[in-house]
């Protein structure tokens, strides 16, 4: 059964490390749905959040193949680790003419989005949340006319246990 998995990957901050990871996915026909890369507190390590999908055997191979790379320090399948928080951000430039400006603002209010740039004909809206929320906002704004859309891809973190 195909399932979506969010992988959290720590890699050595060396040139070529990212190319190795992306090359691995391309070369073995694995999917990358989204990929987010950034520094960590430790400057010698980078952190990657990678969303992929596949059946159990494929996901097992993906994780093992990632671990096999000499530069990969740690791989966690966040999806399998129990509860986790996931967030994505999107910037949406939406048409906002006279008659629709109020409508856009109302939706922003409902979804707690921020308007981060304004022009006579457009609003640029910043939305943050789980993937489902981003998608809901996009769907609702579509009829009004989305001129441009940029998404960051997902980042995720395991939730700590609530009780000791």
């Amino acid at each position, binding site marked *: 059964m195909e399932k979506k998995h969010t992988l959290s990957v720590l*890699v*050595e901050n060396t*040139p*070529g490390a990212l*190319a*190795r990871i992306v*090359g*691995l996915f391309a*070369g073995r026909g694995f999917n990358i749905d989204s990929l987010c890369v950034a520094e960590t507190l430790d400057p010698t390590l980078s952190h990657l959040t990678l969303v992929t999908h596949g059946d159990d*055997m494929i996901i*097992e*191979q993906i994780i*093992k*193949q990632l*671990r*096999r790379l*000499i*530069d*990969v*320090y740690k791989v966690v399948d966040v999806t399998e680790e129990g509860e986790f928080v996931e967030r994505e951000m999107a910037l949406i430039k939406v048409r906002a003419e006279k008659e629709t400006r109020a409508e856009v603002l109302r939706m922003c209010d409902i979804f707690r989005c921020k308007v981060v740039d304004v022009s006579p004909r457009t609003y640029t809206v910043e939305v943050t949340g789980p993937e489902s929320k981003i998608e809901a906002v996009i769907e609702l704004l579509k009829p009004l006319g989305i001129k441009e859309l940029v998404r960051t891809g997902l980042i995720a973190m395991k939730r700590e246990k609530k009780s000791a």
Partner: protein
Amino acid sequence: MATKMTGAQIIVEALKREGVDIVFGYPGGAVIDIYDELYRTPEIKHVLVRHEQGATHAADGLARSTGKVGVCLVTSGPGATNTVTGIATAYMDSIPIVVLTGQVPTKLIGNDAFQEVDITGITRPCTKHNFLVKRVEDLAWTLKAAFHIARTGRPGPVLVDLPKDIQQAKTDFHWPEEIRLRSYNPVYEPHKRQVEKAYRLLESSTRPVILVGGGVISSGAHEEVRELAELLHIPVTMTLMGLGGFPGTHEYSLGMLGMHGTYYANMAVANSDLIIAVGARFDDRVTGKVDAFAPMAKIVHIDIDPTSIQKNVRVDVPIVGDCKRSLAKLLEIIKEVGRPSKLWKEQFKEWWEQIDIWRRRYPLTYKQDGEHIKPQFVIEKLYQLTKGEAIVCTEVGQNQMWTAQFYKFDKPRTLLSSGGLGTMGYGFPAAIGAQMANPDKLVLDIAGDGSIQMNIQEMATAMDQRLPIKVIILNNGYLGMVRQWQELFYDRRYSAVQFATIPDFVKLAEAYGAVGLRATKPEEVEGVLKKALETNNLVLVDIHIAPEEGVFPMVPAGRATTEMILV
């Protein structure tokens, strides 16, 4: 006390400290500084090849025949790209080599400079790891890491790209005696609980088979395999890469399994209730149609690389660890429990009866026709004349399969063959590497008329080094393995499998100062082979074999391994 050294000096010093005494290479502008250093280093023997692909295969042959890391050194650009096939060959078969490539000066990298190529980019998917050294201070550590990565865990090729200015820059030399890479920690010690599970499966099994792969050779686990098989009376089959991991002449040996494996090995695996796979990766040449592979068997899979496990077949008991240590642990448990060997024998008695029926029904065989030289006969004769003591390299194709079937390999590291990539042109340069590293052993290359022409230029290298390699060309006048597929599956449409021009191999040998011999009739074979083996020189033996002889048994690609085409 640290002393200032140039990058080139550090490179040569690192090779010495890693115990490298032979380097295969080809010079050029981007490595001229290293060559200048080698000029002053009599401890390291440099073997000048005729093509960089030859250098990589030679380093690979040295590695396979000794277990050491093979090393080659080439210039940037075309020198580097010429190594790619050799690197991919070593990668597919998990062979430890270190490839040193020259690179344009760091400030020119990315500029399309003269003889610049992004060789770390090109080889990323076919090396275990690679490095581009950007600071001379990193050089010693990087070289140490390269050797460490190449030889440990699942071995493989490592490439180090060395910009020219780094070779010329100076720094203090610090050699790290120990190296620790936080992101690379291969697991050697197996999980005890997993090994116990394997033991319990053995206890309840009635039809077990041990499947020996290339990992047994690389981990040196042949003694343990033998002990396990003999103690418990279990039949053993080998992949192409596993040949020699268990004595081919042993009564418990079923020979090779898979596409061109024996009938009885494939039948045994298909009907087994337990497979103990040791350092094998269930390649499609071995499993045939995966869904039909060993349907009744539970599988115990020992492998140092977790990605090999559960990749192609479902595994019941995965054991991540070194073959030798894992088998040692299993043997420990067996001895602790102390079930008498006799009881095990009793347990598998019916199984052996069945296997013996299969063995008698379809032994490995071929038909003599009194007219043509049969390639299988040549290999049998070679086996007898060399008493099975040679290091045998092969090219790729029918020649390779006949060798695997009819030469009985009793010892590890005696068959050198490109299994995973199937690289025509591998055998001869590999033989050069093997002979350089084993000057007192007999080294053969069993070749096809097509393959031998892929690296024939290395004749000159062998002559330079006075290597008495015996190249036995099984000359069928065809790209035989492809022809066989066309015969069987393409209605004999022989498309592009015959060369209009084939050189006179005897004259060719003589042109290089080697000895050329020829046999065209069955009765000449023994004499010619004897003569070749007695000759203390490079010999090319051109044996004209039955042109349309096939390799059998054969499992058609994508079929179940029980659907064999027999002789």
